[in-house]
């Protein structure tokens, strides 16, 4: 086990104050510190927010195990596992939708990284005429509703023969993800110390080596956040997939849509919860890696 760091009492007090404790009283070398009222309120608020965020999911969870749940029952009269067996072994094409969603989301994330990294770097580190206009232009897919442009896009994709194909869907998913990825990375690069790259080049690293061994590890938190955005946007995308995929590209949101119209609330709830899982996993992984980066001191950029 590594040696524990030695800190002075003053440092310990300062650290505790940062965590929300305040000094209550001190007699000689004995000091009492309690969580301050402000801290307690803050913690209370945090709990409230978490409860409010998770509250809508509770009925879903209950529904997924319910045979039938009717008003004014507080809880379902009968419980069953049939919805969950249907999800895993049934014919509702859940596994197919899951796999398809995952594939599209991963490809979309990878491609938006490929575009977003050099674009974000240019926006963050370089000065060129029209830079502010370009930034605004990048935001348009987010500002403008996809519905407005959907007809035009569909027309174009039909012409290109990409309508109803995986490639077409991925292309269309890139529309909202690239702006987010680029802007996140632009802000990371804006705070990036150019000296690192200069030193690396001076020590003998080529541009590629510099990027892989110096730049990338240092912007990793930003990359993780950007990838998280891209993944989640693509994972939850319904409208664009529905129109462009034309039913031939079958993602999880499409499964949900079909089920919602069917009226089997239990099965829908089970599928809905299933669709949450990869997003949550990704989020937890991202959070973990961001914590590590923070420990390394690289988080100042994000």
């Amino acid at each position, binding site marked *: 086990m590594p040696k524990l760091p030695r800190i002075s009492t003053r440092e310990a007090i300062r650290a505790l104050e940062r965590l929300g404790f305040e000094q209550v009283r001190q007699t000689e070398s004995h000091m009492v510190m309690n969580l301050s009222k402000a801290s307690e309120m803050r913690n209370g608020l945090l709990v409230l927010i978490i409860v409010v965020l998770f509250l809508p999911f509770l009925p879903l969870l209950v529904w997924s195990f319910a045979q039938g749940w009717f008003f004014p029952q507080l809880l379902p009269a009968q419980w069953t596992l049939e919805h969950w067996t249907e999800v895993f072994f049934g014919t509702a094409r859940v596994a197919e939708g899951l796999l398809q969603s995952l594939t599209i989301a991963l490809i979309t994330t990878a491609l938006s990284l490929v575009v977003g990294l050099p674009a974000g770097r240019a926006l963050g580190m370089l000065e060129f005429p029209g830079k502010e206009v370009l930034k605004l232009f990048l935001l348009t897919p987010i500002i403008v509703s996809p519905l407005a442009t959907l007809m035009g896009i569909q027309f174009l994709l039909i012409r290109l023969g990409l309508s109803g194909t995986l490639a077409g869907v991925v292309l269309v998913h890139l529309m909202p993800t690239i702006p987010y990825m680029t802007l996140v990375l632009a802000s990371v690069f804006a705070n990036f*110390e150019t*000296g*690192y790259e*200069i*030193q*690396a*080049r*001076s*020590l*003998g*690293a*080529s541009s590629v*080596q510099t990027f892989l061994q*110096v730049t990338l*590890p*240092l912007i990793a938190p930003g990359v993780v956040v950007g990838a998280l955005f891209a993944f989640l946007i693509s994972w939850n995308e319904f409208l664009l997939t529905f129109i462009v995929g034309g039913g031939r590209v079958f993602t999880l949101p499409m499964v949900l849509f079909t089920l919602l119209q069917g009226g089997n609330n239990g099965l829908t709830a089970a599928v809905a919860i299933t669709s949450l899982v990869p997003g949550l996993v990704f989020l937890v992984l991202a959070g973990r890696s961001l914590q590590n980066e923070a420990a*390394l*001191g*690289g988080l100042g950029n994000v």
Partner: protein
Amino acid sequence: MEHLLLQNLTKRFQDVVAVQDLWLSVSAGEILALLGPSGCGKSTTLQLIAGMLRPDSGSIVLDGKTLNAVPPEKRDIALVLQRGVLFPHLTVGENVGFGLKMRGVNRVDRESKAKAILRQVQLEGFATRKPSELSGGQAQRVALARSLIIQPKLLLLDEPLSALDANLREEMQELILQLQADTGITMLVVTHDQSEAVVMAQRIALMFDGCLRQVAPSEKLYRQPVDERTARFMGGVNFFEAEAIGTCWQINHHQTLTSHQSTAGKVCVTIRPEQIQVFPEAIETVNCIQATVTANRFMGTQRRLTLTAQDFTLQAWTTPTQDWGIGQQVWAVLPPDALWCFSSAGTSFSG
């Protein structure tokens, strides 16, 4: 025999000419200081030499090889930036070994070489630490080790001491000079501090507004600056007008100074404050001027006096042990070999 030669180097940033037609030669094993106020183009010159910027015209020749088209990583030139800039995600040992890793040296050799050089910079045992755990001075030393380990042909230091505390500065100066003496490496130090340049370098290249003003050994810049701006930048404070006839310089209606410099016409005379000798009584010697002490400041290692003579004031820096009263009548001796002049227009006459 020149090791580094800059020929006709010019670099423009839109409308601003940062470096104009620069010619400079550095000998092998020499320490040259590139000195100048901020914005004079010295950092740009450094970046051009390192390969981070492309010159608009001119060439950079190192050891006979023209470097213009060579990318920075192949130039065999190490650059140490102002604040060390160590890679935060690597340990000290990995930082130091980075250059060797880029050159394909295996891990075992890298680690042993890194240990050896860390010992040289008095940071033995620091190999496993992270840069965030180091003080400013320690980080700077790691940066030096990181650059020297690859044995570059040229070492460029960009304001190596300006980010350090005053007491650390001297230690670092000593270390840099020691390392240079041990390795014999050619060094170019960029600084805005003339006292730093004088300590660290054998020759100083003074730059103003993108052009070289004077390139000479440090002492010459002090005693024979090429114009008033140079003299002021090097810390000169005494400037007064005179009418010169050969070596007799008339400073007002009844006072004439004798100098070692022979010239003619209206000139601007300067003398370094530390060269003026102050006496409580008149003495039999040339260039003895009567003056009154109007200010007296104790500066620790010296005493700074302001002496007001009939039509001009002089600043004299004398030994701190002797004290003077305000209003006291003194006699200031201006040694003839310490007097230097340039024409009021600014260029000097060779003396």
